[in-house]
């Protein structure tokens, strides 16, 4: 047993942190936050040049072929930096769906383009309110075309292609769902940008109107593929959330040391110390659960479904907890636009919803634990 990242992986983390500290300052994030550009194109290009976008994509498909542990390491740094790029939608969702279910030709078309930063991808799953469920998929696929509306779609307005979940049968059973690959620049696609909690990562409404689509994976297998994609994305996002939680904790700690009130550093008041200690506890538990998820992901262990749900819940809670209490430590300053606290608060709460809400994953976790106990 060795429950830690390797020295090489830690070196990669240092490298990613250094790169992001330089190229993704809070000032750079604000350019996207203020709506001047939908994402940081320079940063995206830089990430591709560093090999970070294709780190878990095999070399045959233009990636670095390193693996998922390496991707976890980078994800954590993306979270720390609050990077305003379509990393999660492209790398965790679209690329993973292709890796799991894509035909050779599909992988050859899209994966090298992802690794080189030329293509942005996303997953179009949700249709309004509700969590991931076959019965919430109403968009219809028939005769090789799609008809229906997806929203919210993460980074939908800037994506080049989408993996779309569609109904191929009449009933809402698992086996009636299939996945399709859609070139979003094709005709029959209409994209509308949606205002959202975290403007550093866009959300869109996409209308498909007799839009051509090619199947991704076998017909009727869509739900089983999606479940795997969501589990993998849950682990990878958990690392982003852990990175964000750690950064929010650091910001709070630094401010508590810096700010003097009543003649003392506010970090010397037990009420403040204990709040920060609790932030540390939640971030640590989340990190440990995420490490277990990383192990399960990288070894494709049978524990992955349970580990992914646990990592997801723990990391979601930790990021939300640290982000909100970081504002609390900062007092009035924390609630200003000028301070960076709200960027993490926005990101934490947007991330808590993106792959299905907390209560959805709680439900998943208990189901999975029961299955394991029954086995």
């Amino acid at each position, binding site marked *: *047993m*060795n*429950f*830690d*990242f*390797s020295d090489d992986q830690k070196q990669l983390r240092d490298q990613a942190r250094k790169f992001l500290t330089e190229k993704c300052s809070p000032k750079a994030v604000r350019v996207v936050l203020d709506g001047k550009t939908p994402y940081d194109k320079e940063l995206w290009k830089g990430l591709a040049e560093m090999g970070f976008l294709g780190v878990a994509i095999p070399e045959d498909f233009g990636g670095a072929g390193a693996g998922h*542990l390496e991707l976890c390491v980078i994800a954590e740094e993306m979270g720390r930096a609050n990077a305003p790029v379509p990393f999660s939608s492209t790398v965790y969702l679209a690329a993973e769906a292709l890796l799991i279910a894509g035909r050779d030709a599909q992988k050859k078309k899209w994966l090298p383009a992802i690794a080189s930063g030329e293509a942005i991808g996303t997953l179009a799953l949700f249709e309004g309110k509700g969590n991931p469920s076959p019965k919430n998929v109403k968009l219809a696929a028939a005769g090789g075309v799609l008809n229906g509306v997806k929203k919210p779609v993460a980074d939908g307005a800037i994506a080049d292609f989408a993996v779309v979940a569609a109904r191929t049968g009449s009933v809402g059973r698992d086996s009636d769902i299939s996945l399709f690959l859609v070139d979003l620049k094709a005709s029959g696609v209409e994209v509308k940008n949606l205002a959202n909690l975290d403007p550093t990562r866009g959300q869109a409404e996409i209308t498909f109107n007799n839009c051509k689509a090619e199947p991704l994976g076998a017909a009727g297998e869509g739900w089983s593929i999606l479940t795997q994609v969501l589990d993998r994305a849950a682990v990878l996002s958990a690392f982003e959330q852990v990175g964000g939680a750690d950064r929010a*904790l650091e910001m709070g*700690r630094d401010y*508590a*040391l810096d700010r003097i009130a009543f003649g*003392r*550093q506010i*970090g*010397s008041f*037990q009420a*403040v*110390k*204990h709040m*920060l*200690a*609790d932030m*540390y*506890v939640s971030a*640590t*538990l*989340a990190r*440990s*659960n995420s*490490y*277990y998820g*990383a*192990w399960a992901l*990288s070894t494709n262990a049978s524990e992955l479904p349970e580990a992914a*749900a*646990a990592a997801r*819940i*723990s990391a979601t*809670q930790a990021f939300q907890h640290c982000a909100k209490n970081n504002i609390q430590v900062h007092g009035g300053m924390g609630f200003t636009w000028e301070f960076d606290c709200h960027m993490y608060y926005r990101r934490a709460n947007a991330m808590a919803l993106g792959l299905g809400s907390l*209560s959805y*994953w*709680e*439900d998943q*976790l*208990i189901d999975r*634990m*029961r299955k394991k*106990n029954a086995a």
Partner: protein
Amino acid sequence: MNFDDTPQEAEFRSQARAWIAANAPKQYEDELRKSSLGRTQLKNANILEVAKAWQKKKAEAGWACLHWPRDYGGRGSSPIERVIWQQEEGPFGKLSGMFIIGHGMCGPTMMAFAREEHKRNYLPPLASGEKVWCQLFSEPAGGSDVAGLRTRAEKDGDEWVINGQKIWTSGAHYSDYGILLTRTDPNVAKHKGLTMFFLDMKSPGVEVRPIKQANGASDFNEVYFTNVRIPDHQRLGEVNDGWNVSLTTLMNERMSIGAGVSTGFPELFDYCASLMLDDGPAIEDRAVRSKLANWAVKASGLRYTSMRAISALSKGERPGPENSIGKLVAGAMIQDVATYALDLQGAAGVVSGPEDADVAGRFQAMLLRAPGTRVEGGTDEIMRNIIAERVLGLPGDIRVDKDVPFNKIPTKGGN
């Protein structure tokens, strides 16, 4: 990132498994498995005797105190081998409860500070469970302020004369030896005038009085010292350097990580899987599932946090103050879990007798034991201070007794 055993670890595991299968006191397995915090006892046997017999058997076959050197009754095992042993020992590990203080804290302190002949004489019988040790630190006026202790040790020729009182001493009523922190100089600041000894608990002048706890059990004691004489060669460390010696003890307490803290979660999960509520099985209920999931990730988070610590330990890193989170999280959790399990039972939750209560009254027992868990070994508040100060680097609490001679510090009350 690897959870699989290496070939050596797999070999160790299979040896341990085979030996345990052939030697463990299986007649108690079921009872031990079902026991939980606040209720580890055997119906038809004296648990102290059963525990001592099991420990002796382990020691004779070389499975006792795995991490100790062989010369002192251990096995010289790696931290990971310890974890493997604990996994394999399973419910029989609960029998080690009464040895934890001796093996986790007294033994390592002896190893660091006792003379060689004492180590060779005292440590092997401690490892084998033949002799039980306790740790005499806390005092009535001390509480979390351990260094505020008042038990005096005064030099008289080659001996020290001890007078005073300790409290909250786990297992003192069945202990043979103890390590004792005393005040040897009241004219200097409180941390600077302390000295550590070890002593025979049967020495004249030592009186042990069990304390009846809120849960009705008596695991702790008051210990009175009246002109108890300890030879100078039983001193551990230098005179007035006892605080540093005690820090070694407490540091070793952190080394006991991996023992797997009790959270109450597995018990609650099992219970909810079988419990029928008015509207159907508890585990199908949305609110129940949400609660369970929240506790599940705390329990798994603690488990993997200790595995990370063990990995660090096996690479030669020292366990740090970050390991304070285990007790902090688990202590509060077990209390909440027990409260919730009783809430699910409605009015019937109030019944606590093992014969009449659901799941043998284990949650009622947990509920009544849990407040102690949040206090012993440092309160939640002290644990948070440790994390805030030593992990996050925040300023220490303001201490008005700092640099004040101990005998000039105002005192009142205590418990």
